[in-house]
């Protein structure tokens, strides 16, 4: 019954998650038997003594998968780029002639400027043989080809006023200059920087006893929860200057460690601030992408956690 119930819920949850376009991570978990079997299962569950509880809590560790989500959209692949270009060309070829009279008043300066900016098609002249077909012009547009509407540049835009940066940043007329997608951190390959690989998700990993791992912490006290331990631990080793958002209090993965220790992973995103190693036991830390993690991690450790790590 319990298994059956779980399968149905799995299906529902998958349906719900995969329908949302932006979702790339499954984070919600519905326990297999929260409502229906509470009474029956709690009957067989015997509450442990304080000693037993402390013993079992000492074998649980809270791991933290702290990620920086992409800041820019992913790189467009050559096929995508050429396909989008083809679609755009088709659209321009099939579009109706731009209704100039709707946008520009007849005889106005704006209309004059617009007319000047347009490319004139070849006119059809009587008695001339056109090898490649007689021009078919209506409303100033060659109907056999795509239409290119040239928007006349405003004087401020056209002139090189050099106001892209500096003092008059508030000027309405300043030229809009896009920021580069490749940053200084990319060029110097500074793995401790959060402003590298802007189109990818970066994960925080730390080096302890010569091995690279996601940070993990033991539970404190009798009542501390997994995500609380992860948040507290992160600030103990990396300082308080970080704004993080824990995705869910539900663990996203589990790894059986040495002995009977089990490490449960909590997902979290960094929103602002930075990690600065303030404890001496942390030999090094880095913000890395999926491929880079594969190089740093132990093979089995990576393969277990691979589905949780985003490719983009």
């Amino acid at each position, binding site marked *: 019954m319990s298994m059956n119930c779980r399968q149905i819920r*799995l299906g529902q*949850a*998958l349906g719900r*998650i*995969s329908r949302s376009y932006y979702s*790339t991570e*499954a984070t919600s*978990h*519905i*326990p*297999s038997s929260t409502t229906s079997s509470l009474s029956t299962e709690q009957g067989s569950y015997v509450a*442990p003594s304080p000693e037993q*509880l402390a013993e*079992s*809590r000492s074998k*649980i560790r809270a791991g933290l998968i702290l990620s920086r*989500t*992409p*800041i*820019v*959209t992913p790189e467009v692949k050559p*096929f995508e780029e050429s396909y989008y270009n083809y679609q755009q060309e088709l659209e321009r*070829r099939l579009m*109706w*002639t731009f*209704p100039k009279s*709707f946008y520009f008043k*007849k005889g106005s300066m704006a209309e004059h400027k617009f007319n000047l900016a347009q490319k004139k098609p070849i006119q059809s002249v009587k008695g001339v043989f056109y090898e490649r077909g007689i021009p*078919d012009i*209506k*409303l100033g547009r060659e*109907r*056999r080809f795509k*239409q290119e509407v040239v928007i006349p540049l405003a004087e401020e835009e056209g002139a090189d006023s050099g106001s892209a940066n500096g003092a008059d940043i508030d000027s309405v007329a300043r030229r809009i200059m896009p*920021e*580069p*997608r490749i940053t200084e951190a990319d060029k110097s390959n500074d793995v401790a*920087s959060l*402003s590298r690989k*802007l*189109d990818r998700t970066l994960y925080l990993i730390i080096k302890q006893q010569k091995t690279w791992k996601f940070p993990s912490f033991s539970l404190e006290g009798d*009542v501390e*929860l997994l995500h609380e331990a992860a948040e507290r631990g992160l600030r103990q080793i990396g300082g*308080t200057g970080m*704004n993080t*958002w824990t995705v*869910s*209090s539900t*663990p*996203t*993965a*589990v790894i059986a460690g040495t002995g009977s220790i*089990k490490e*449960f992973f909590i997902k979290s*995103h960094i*929103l*602002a*601030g930075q990690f600065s190693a303030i404890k001496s036991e942390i030999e090094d830390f880095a913000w890395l992408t999926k491929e880079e993690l594969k190089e740093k991690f132990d093979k089995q450790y990576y393969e277990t956690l691979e*589905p*949780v790590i985003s490719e983009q």
Partner: protein
Amino acid sequence: MNKFGLSNFVRPSIFRSHCLGSIKTPTSVSTFVRFARTSAKKKNRGELSASQVRQKNLLSAVSGARKVPRKLDMCVEDLIRHNTVTRAWALYQKEIRDKRAQNLERQYRMIDEACDALKSAGDRNLYNKATKREFGKRFPMELRVPTDTPPKIVWQYEWSPEEKEKK
């Protein structure tokens, strides 16, 4: 002249109903034009008033009589090439979709596995709290949607907990 002070000049029948609409609520511009016309006593019947020009432009913007391009005729080779491209795009999109769905399924199984392990780990309180539904949880305001180019300040490195409290 009728009771609205309009001369009964002939208008294209297509605009007649629109013109009646404009008489009920005359704008200052159209009033000006009307007076100008009546006072000058122009006999130019082909010329339209400003509001009529506006309406004509409106209508012509949505009518395709002279605006439609020539039909796009492709030769056999190009049609096959076009179909190949369309088909390849559909397959490419399907591949991405399938991969995403498969990954989500794997992630869900891992969550399931982790929760089962947590249940048998001894501290039942830990499990109950971890699997409790979090109602009303929202994405924080600070979380950005990816854009094509980065912002001026790529990352805010200096941040302190007081900043959050202020908000």
